[in-house]
């Protein structure tokens, strides 16, 4: 009875007693406190540097597309840089600012409540589905909509439906159009399409904010900038479209790597009301996965490469996760909690294995795994 949220039997983490759990929680708190107490000028400089990069790279890339878009190498560079600019804006700047990580700067332009990022999702909607729902009910099936986005099946604990046979192609197009899906996430379109529990009229009413934002985004990237480019309208249009897709692909890959990798656990809706802070920490660790890489990879992923630390401390400036990570890793080792970390490619590979497994009913997957095991034994001897 020490766990208010049940953990799966195949968990790689040790079961902790109530006392151990509480102790573990206190140690996590201590790590948080130590870092949060040292936040100051260097963190301010860091985020302003990131913001300046976003602005200068956007100006430079749009300039390249506008004036030299018809020259293929310039188009490639402009498009690539715009994609990069949008990635950094969405991940390291927008996502983190909207978590309130930099509220303490007292800068209304970098305040979590005001910030609205350069993507289809409105800041408001995102703060509800992501900051509140996803970060509170992380990986609890039926509560955390990020478990498959109502579109794909990412856990064997999710009920199988025939549409999940297309799990892999569905996931692929989810990646391409990710910014649209995130924009629409709050509408729960699957309730209207697959489950018929929501009418299209309700969808239309709920979508008022999204429509405003989408009009703004489409008008900006596909009307305004092409128009002012005059004869270069077409290369600008194409460059903006490709840059948006580059961003969608990257953002979704980072997010898949954070929660859909092989060993990330999902949880059954249980009595989360009685969950203690320490139990919540444990759930965050077991439901998230990190990937390792260079400093640039961390910046490009908005430091969500430290997904575990982000889930433990969503309001900590993300540039500090790298400092928290070794401490959390050591703590997990001490308590026998699985700290899910691997290279980007390894994690990403395991995502697709998991998606493939989940496209079939559990019984089929189980029998396939059994036959695979049999084959392996056959060949070994």
């Amino acid at each position: 009875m020490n766990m208010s949220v049940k953990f799966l039997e195949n968990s790689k983490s040790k079961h902790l007693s109530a006392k151990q759990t509480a102790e573990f929680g206190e140690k996590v708190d201590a790590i948080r406190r130590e870092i949060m107490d040292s936040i100051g000028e260097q963190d301010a400089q860091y985020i302003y540097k990131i913001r300046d990069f976003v602005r200068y790279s956007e100006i430079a890339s749009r300039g390249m597309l506008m004036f030299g878009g018809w020259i293929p190498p310039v188009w490639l560079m402009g498009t690539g840089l715009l994609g990069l600019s949008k990635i950094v804006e969405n991940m390291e700047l927008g996502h983190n600012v909207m978590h309130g990580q930099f509220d303490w700067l007292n800068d209304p332009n970098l305040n979590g409540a005001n910030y609205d990022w350069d993507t289809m999702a409105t800041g408001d909607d995102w703060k509800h589905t992501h900051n509140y729902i996803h970060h509170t009910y992380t990986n609890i099936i039926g509560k955390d909509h990020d478990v498959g986005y109502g579109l794909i099946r990412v856990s064997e604990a999710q009920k199988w439906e025939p549409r999940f046979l297309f799990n892999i192609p569905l996931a692929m197009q989810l990646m391409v159009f990710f910014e649209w899906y995130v924009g629409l996430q709050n509408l729960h379109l699957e309730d209207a399409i697959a489950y018929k529990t929501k009418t299209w009229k309700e969808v239309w009413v709920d979508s008022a904010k999204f429509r405003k934002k989408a009009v703004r985004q489409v008008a900006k990237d596909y009307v305004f900038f092409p128009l002012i480019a005059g004869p270069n309208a077409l290369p600008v249009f194409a460059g903006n479209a490709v840059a948006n897709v580059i961003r969608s692909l990257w953002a979704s890959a980072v997010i898949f790597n954070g929660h859909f990798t092989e060993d990330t656990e999902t949880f059954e809706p249980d009595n989360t009301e009685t969950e203690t802070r320490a139990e919540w920490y444990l759930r965050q660790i077991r439901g998230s996965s990190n990937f390792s890489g260079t400093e640039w990879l961390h910046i490009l992923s908005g430091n969500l490469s430290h997904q575990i630390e982000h889930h433990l401390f969503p309001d900590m400036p993300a540039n500090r996760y790298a400092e928290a990570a070794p401490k959390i890793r050591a703590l997990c080792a001490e308590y026998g909690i699985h700290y899910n970390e691997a290279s980007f490619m390894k994690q990403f590979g395991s995502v697709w294995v998991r998606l493939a497994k989940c496209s079939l009913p559990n019984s089929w997957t189980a029998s396939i795994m059994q036959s695979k095991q049999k084959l392996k034994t056959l060949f070994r001897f």
Partner: protein
Amino acid sequence: MSHVMQYQPQWIREDFIDFIAEKVNPVWAWKKVKASIVDVHMLNEDFYQIQLQPNHNFQAKTFRAGQSILVTVVIAGVRQQRSYSIVKITAQGNIVIAVKRQGKVSNALTHLARGSVVEISQVQGDFTLSSSQDSILLLASGSGITAIYSLLEQALIQKVKQIDLLYFTRDNAFHSELLQLAEQYSQFHYHHFNTVAQKQHLSVELLESRVTDFKQRQSYACGAKGMMQSLNQIYQHLGIADQLKQEYFQVVVDETAAVQPVVFLRAQQEFEAKTNLLESAEQAGLRPAHGCRMGICNTCTCTKVSGSTKNLLTGEIDHDSNTQIKLCISQAVSPVVINL
């Protein structure tokens, strides 16, 4: 999800325009008011008079004596904002404020070099002189004198027939100017108390002895916590609280209220609140955005999802869900959940 405010995307991002503008000229901005410091002069050892030259966005014409502006100073990368009463606005449209070095913001502000650019707000506040009055009583202590001095000059312009000022001070800021005014204008009676030379508290006896008809007068007060508290007690006791107009520069917390648990939803943090919500959060190691710390600037405004809070300025209790509150002047009177 019901949201209190209507969502409206920013078509053109103001911060982007300002970012470009300030590269050209640091005081340029689209809508924001920025000002460069043109003069800093010492009134006495820790009291400074600062003259600011604002950009074109500043609406000097709306100024009424007694009002203030918020000044933002960047300290160690963090924007800090405080409210300062305006002493006067010069004929050229420059703003003169008096700043007492008493905290990190005023300290940083008085150390800024000439030519430095700071962000300021439009004039604000309703601590102003009512239009038709025959006799008034002004009460000031400490740096509260800036707002009162401004009201006094306005009262002299408006030809108020009887003006009494009770001024409790340790540093005698504006003392010589006030003496001069008292000599020049017979309708102005100046009661000066240097509290270093002689300890003197505000009491009903003092008021009665100095201004016999004070109960009939409209009163204006700006000062430190101690004076404001005694003044409020006196006026409430006499049943003339509606004749008192006051400006605080410190928020007074209800110390008798019980400790309440507060949850910051998005930060996933819970803490115990003993004082106002901003201070309590800071004591728990959280750093919500804030500005003036006295309920003016709206920087710390956020959505209260549930629970009841008391407005420390008005005493009103807000039981509603999904309402906007200011952390710095709200105290929890029940468990509270905040969307931060």
